[in-house]
């Protein structure tokens, strides 16, 4: 079976449309990020206490909120989701309290006490309690950002060494593009960035690169084989030649991610979602963003050279 025979699509011609598309996505994400005052960090990064209770029967968020308001947790974030045990079996309630004077276990104790008073007939089970100090949160945030930047720098160096600097620029721009768009979509959907999601972002960095490099490798190879052709044709041919690989790999990975997203359970939901978006965007960017940038950079260099020559003359 073959999805693509020898294609000869003029991908580079679509680059303007692609730039616009990417631009709109990035802009929307940035606006959302600014409007929300930055990414919505999970408890890992923000500090605070989060408690997940599994009620045996249906309990509404309102009931829980009314009960917790009495002990000053009225502003707490309270979310309900269908129980892990399946629909109709009861409900899971997630309660998140911002960092305060109390330790995680004290918060949990107070909540349990109050619920026992107000909802004595509803039995529940504590699924998890997490509490992170504000300091560690700030540190994690710093470490995660630092990790992303350092890996970007190292990748820039590696690709410059293995290929040429212009390829490195294309790869890193594509990377930023992917991470920014994924982050933007997270913000648009008001999803939360947890430690696990950061892991997903870093996987995305690796994957997106992987994809881009396969195309670059082809370009590098074809630069030698097709000396007479201009860069535009070479890049286009290369993208076409590696197209079936790009699509198939994305497909197999997406298959797994879709499964993870739908049945992997709550804990890896965010992880699967980040990768689902990221890998779609990453596949798109390796075709429509990274390679066109290599061409554009080349074009810019040539123009600059030309200008200089004109100026000299």
């Amino acid at each position, binding site marked *: 079976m073959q999805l693509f025979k020898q294609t000869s699509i003029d991908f580079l011609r679509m680059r303007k449309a692609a730039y616009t598309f990417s631009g709109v996505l990035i802009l929307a994400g940035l606006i959302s990020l600014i409007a929300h005052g930055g990414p919505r960090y999970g408890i890992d990064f923000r500090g605070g206490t989060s408690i997940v209770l599994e009620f045996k029967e249906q309990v509404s968020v309102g009931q829980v909120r009314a009960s917790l308001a009495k002990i000053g947790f009225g502003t707490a974030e309270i979310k309900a989701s269908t129980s*892990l045990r399946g629909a109709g079996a009861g409900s899971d309630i997630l309660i998140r309290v911002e960092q305060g004077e109390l330790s995680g276990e004290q918060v949990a104790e107070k909540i349990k006490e109050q619920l026992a008073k107000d909802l004595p007939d509803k039995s529940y089970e504590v699924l998890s*309690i997490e*509490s992170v100090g504000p300091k560690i949160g700030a540190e994690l945030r710093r470490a995660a950002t630092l990790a992303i930047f350092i890996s970007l720098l190292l990748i820039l160096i590696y690709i410059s060494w293995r290929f040429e600097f212009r390829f490195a620029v294309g790869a890193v721009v594509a990377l930023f593009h992917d991470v920014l768009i994924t982050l933007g979509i997270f913000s648009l959907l008001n999803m939360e960035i947890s430690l*696990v999601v950061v892991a997903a972002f870093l996987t995305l960095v690796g994957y997106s690169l992987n994809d881009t490099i*396969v195309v670059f*490798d082809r370009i590098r190879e074809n630069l030698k084989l097709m000396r007479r052709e201009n860069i535009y044709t070479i890049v286009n041919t290369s993208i076409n030649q590696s197209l079936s690989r790009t699509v198939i790999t994305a497909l197999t990975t997406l*298959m*797994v991610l879709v499964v993870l997203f739908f049945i992997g359970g709550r804990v890896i939901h965010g992880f699967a979602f980040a990768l689902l978006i990221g890998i779609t965007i990453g596949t798109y960017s390796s075709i429509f963003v990274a390679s066109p940038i290599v061409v554009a950079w080349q074009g810019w260099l040539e123009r600059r050279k030309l200008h200089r020559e004109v100026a000299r003359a």
Partner: protein
Amino acid sequence: MRRKNLFKLVLLVVLLGWALYQLYPTYRVSNLEKKQKAYLGQLSRLVGVDERQLLSALTVGELEATVSAASAPLPAEARQQARELSGKLITLRSKIDKLEPKALRQGLDLVGGTYLVYEADLRQLARTLARDRDERFSEILDAADKRARAENRDFFDVMVEEFKARNIPLNRYYGRRGQSDDVIINDLRAEAKDGIARTLEVLRNRIDQFGVSEPVIAPQGDKRIVIELAGVQDIERAKRIINTTALLEFKLVREPDITLSVLQDIDKTVKRMRSKGGVEELAAAAQKDTAKTLPEGKKAQEREIDLSQLFGKTEGADTAKAEAAAESTIVVDQQTFEEYPFFSLLRYVEGTDQISVPEQNVAAIKRILQMPEVQKVIPRDAEFLWGAQPYVSRGQRYHQLYFVKKEPELVGAYLKTADVAFGGGESSVRAGQAEVHFELNSEGAKIFRRVTGANVGRFLAIVLDGKVYSAPRIKERIPGGSGRIEGSFTREEARDLAVVLRAGALPAPVEVIEERTVGPSLGQDSIEKGKLSAIIGAALVVVFMIVYYRMSGVIANVALALNIFFLFAALAGLRATLTLPGVAGIVLTVGMAVDANVLIFERIREELRTGKTIRAAIDAGYSRAFRTILDSNVTTLITAVVLYQFGSGPVRGFATTLSIGLIINMYTAIVVTRMIFDYITERYALTKLSI
């Protein structure tokens, strides 16, 4: 070509063997755990205690007590059954505990448990290390601490700056006159590092007492300690135990005659209680005042009896022959048992203060000592304490039991240092033997001088966290405030004891900065879902590969299967912790693992299209794809390494899985599939490649 392939084949076989060896304990553990779950279910139905509660009782070694308490109102038969079951569970648990260090470690998100991060207060540490502390000093430290927190910087760096800003040399408070700031701050850093190591040691000691199997206690960075307690749900209890201040105390062992009379009183009490328990033939004996004569060291005729004889109705010694019995039997001198039910459990050498308890009897003794009636006969100013380590004599393990004065003569706050030393020449027996030397500060020395002077000939127990480490006899008044602890230590044991002594109290206060508990049902649920999605995801990819690449797809799938197998083996071998994101990483690997083969196969197809022969196309496909695979994997590896460097906890696990996965993937996708292709093309003259 042939020889090269043979070498590859041998390598593959060796790798497979290694992988099987690595994974076998994990396989065994998971089987045993299934059995354990079944037993727990049975026991839970029998005694009506929640399964989870039973499990946590089992992990902290309180199952027997829990079960016997819960089964008390049940008929004898059910009680017997419950006892047998708990015996089986304990045996099972010990088997699992033995295997667990070799099995794949599962993260807390998978098994449930408690995760705590402690941070040492460096300011306090810097304060305790300083001398001539004054108002200004405290002020500087507070400022440094505040700034270090606000700016997220290294405390010592900021501290030096603060001193400099005020134009005060560090040697005003630390080190020697004339020492430069750099030297002093380096010393301080070293002290801080040592302090963390000591804190780690103290915490480990305390957690060991907690009885959790395989706790993770690891330093993180330069001032944090991460503690993971799998299976412990009670975070408060965990924190309470961890936070108890370790206390080093010196307590006088009570005089032999007092000890003896207390032992006799306990005997009487136990005997009276046994008779009340309904053992008729002993009822009469209980009326009589038990003789004060104690059995001299006559040849004891020993037999094993069931615990129920001591605590419940006597049902004959043969009732519990099952596995369970082995766990709950005690060793007694048969003749003395009836008369002296408590005393007969001990080995007491008259005239010394040494009481030894055979290991099998420890649980029984503990329970007797905890009985409220027994507590009443123990004098208020004294207590029983256990030795820290058992000793072995003629193949039998004994635990020491000490009867000491409650009020310590001296506490560890007066301790200055403790080091390992070796016995000098004054006694040929002790020469070259490892001992622990300790030194007290001047105030401590004064007290020590008085205590030793007043109690020559008596034994002084060195107690840490309620356990007696050694109890040397005071030979003479010790004036200098230094002493030594002798014992049959090995060099390592002596060192450990010195560490423990120094570690007695935490060098710096610690605070919890992060805590997480994961309920076991969330853990269980995560496993189920993770497993299911892994299986479905893998199945989809496998089917796709066969549909798309036919026979070659099958070969790629072989590589994929090997990939996953090796990955698990590597994780088990490295003692990596499998967390949920780790599972997700593995699942993702499945999706991405075929990438290398897709690259190769697409390339082969291209080469075939240009009209190359099958062999040539395969050769070209592999060699051309190899460079691409290498380049793309190296960049991913870079991110993984950076992740590992900067990440913590789950992120680190993920990075580990990712990088190992990549390397294994390169091997299986390139080398193994190539081997299969080579084998097929050499064997058969293919006219068409199924790709």
